[in-house]
């Protein structure tokens, strides 16, 4: 069985977000492989190491820097990668992203038994793409899983999701879609030999034309949604300390809850 892992290049969590001309100022941002996608790659590589999977393909849509995210996936143990890169893709929304990813799967022709995603990209954070891909391909999906058992011979997968107060267990026919989160596994540190090997693993580039798409079908033109503006969250105000004798403190607090924020 072959599996495909979807990898997004995102700003490092330690990046300080700044806005410029109503867009993200990208000049000083360091990019990494989306941490949730790391769980997905790790899980796929473990399935390969367990002998259940014979090829792990990493796919990303993004600008040139997305190649680094793919390289990280290859260093964890993915076998090969696909990069969909085209200036016309700038401004694509999640629907277009999913559409392009599906096209790339078709173009490559990989006979996948499972598609693995991160549950969310830490930048866009819509959680949309995996569900959209699953829908477009008519595949069953389990989101935000913390455990995965795959039986390629029986053609099924069992995935556990954490839900309010317990776990939900899904059994799905292959091929299927899963999205990964913390708790599923501990992504390994890529070893130096594997970082070196990653350099030699093949990365296939696709342009829009390669995928048989026209610029009108993607980017802003092909999107249903458009981001109108960005704003930074309001600066956190320092908390207010209520001091004094217990009775005074209680009185003050009640007054605050009643009069100021009006929850009582």
């Amino acid at each position, binding site marked *: 069985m072959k599996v495909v892992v979807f990898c997004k290049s995102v700003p490092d969590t330690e990046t300080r977000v700044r806005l410029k001309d109503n867009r993200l100022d990208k000049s000083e941002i360091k990019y*990494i492989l989306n941490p949730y996608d790391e769980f997905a790659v790790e899980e796929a590589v473990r399935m390969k190491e367990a002998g259940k999977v014979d090829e792990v393909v990493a796919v990303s849509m993004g600008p040139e820097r997305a190649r*680094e995210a793919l*390289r*990280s996936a290859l*260093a964890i143990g993915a076998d090969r990668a696909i990069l969909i890169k085209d200036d016309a893709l700038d401004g694509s929304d999640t629907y277009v992203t999913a559409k392009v990813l599906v096209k790339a799967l078709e173009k490559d022709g990989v006979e996948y038994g499972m598609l693995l995603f991160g549950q969310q990209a830490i930048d866009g954070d819509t959680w949309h793409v995996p569900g959209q891909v699953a829908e477009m391909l008519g595949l069953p999906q389990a989101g935000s899983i913390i455990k995965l058992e795959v039986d390629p011979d029986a053609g099924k997968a069992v995935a556990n999701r954490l839900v309010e107060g317990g776990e939900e267990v899904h059994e799905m026919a292959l091929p299927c879609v899963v999205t990964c989160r913390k708790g599923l596994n501990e992504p390994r*540190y*890529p*070893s*130096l*030999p594997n*970082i*070196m090997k*990653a*350099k030699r693993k093949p990365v296939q580039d696709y342009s829009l034309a390669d995928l048989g798409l026209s610029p009108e079908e993607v980017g802003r033109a092909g999107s249903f949604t458009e981001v109108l503006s960005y704003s930074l969250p309001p600066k956190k105000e320092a908390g207010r300390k209520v001091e004094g004798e217990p009775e005074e403190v209680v009185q003050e607090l009640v007054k605050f809850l009643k009069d100021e924020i009006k929850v009582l």
Partner: protein
Amino acid sequence: MRFEFTEEQRMVRDMVRRLADEELKPRAAEMDKKGEIFPEIYQQLAELGLFGVYVPEEYGGAGMDVVSYATVVEELSRGCASTGILVSAHTSLVVDPILHYGTEEQKQKFLMPLAKGEKIAAHAMTEPGAGTDVVSIATTAKRDGDHYILNGTKHFITNGKEASIYLVFAMTDKEKRHKGMSAFIVEKDAPGFSIGKLEHKLGIRASSTAELIFENCRIPAENLLGEEGQGFYIAMHCYDGGRIGVAAQAVGIAQAAYEEAVEFAKTRVQFGQPIANFQAIQFKLADMATMIEAARLLYLKAAWLKQEGKPYYQLSAMAKLFASDVAMRVTREAIQVHGGYGFTEEYPVERHYRDAKITEIYEGTSEAQRLTIARNLLKG
């Protein structure tokens, strides 16, 4: 001129930085207290290929370059200075000379397990009577058929307790002074070899510093590294490279202390505001950041020169001299920024301060570095 890591160098740095944050930093204080680097750390470093960073793949290494190696030492040292010198002494002082001077058989037998981290190495030059003046070592090696017999005592040997392969320097011909020194590979189980006392130290307490005793220690003649009489040159080769490692270690220690100082300055409130608002504190932080960056660029340049096969010993001496001084100054100021808190074990800066001092001493004291630099610039 390009001041940029390659993609692999960046990946290595990011990986080791994460490793240091997640695995070393949380354990560094405890390892310092217990006086050992925990076995699981050795295991992890080995699995990740950090014991043979620039050894070619055919000899069990990762096949990367010297810049990656130096970066690894800095990032490890940022988490735990003892772990930094473990890798640096192993690589620069034993792995590198075997790679450079070893026969094919020696590479297969010794380099392979060292590069893979299956075995740990130590470098034994210093003796109670011979420190900076290495030519005055008293340890001797006498040829006896197809063996050499070693006699003498080494001390202050890093990794001495955990190593199973030692690079030992001894005089094969005392009369010939530095041309009478030779280098030998000694395995832990060699008859007549034993480990003596372990030092209790101010800093890098998790790194073992051992006495080694050779009493009619018999080793096969094929364990001679290079030729008889080549030992002094091999040793100088070791230290030229090792100084890059120690400089990187010093920068790692300074970086760790600096990061603590910034964090503390932003959160400690006095006179109704974070102390980071005071210009006196800001200037300290600015000086620290500037010195660290300069020290880092020096060791990176030395590493790059070595990788390119260009002369680098002048630069590596400068890098070590400067970086060790930076480590001292930065860790001292980091404590100052912390006030009394920095003087207690509750905050890691006291450990960084203790760890910094050794970088001015081993692999050539700061005085010895100045001698090297001055001699070189005045010659011819």
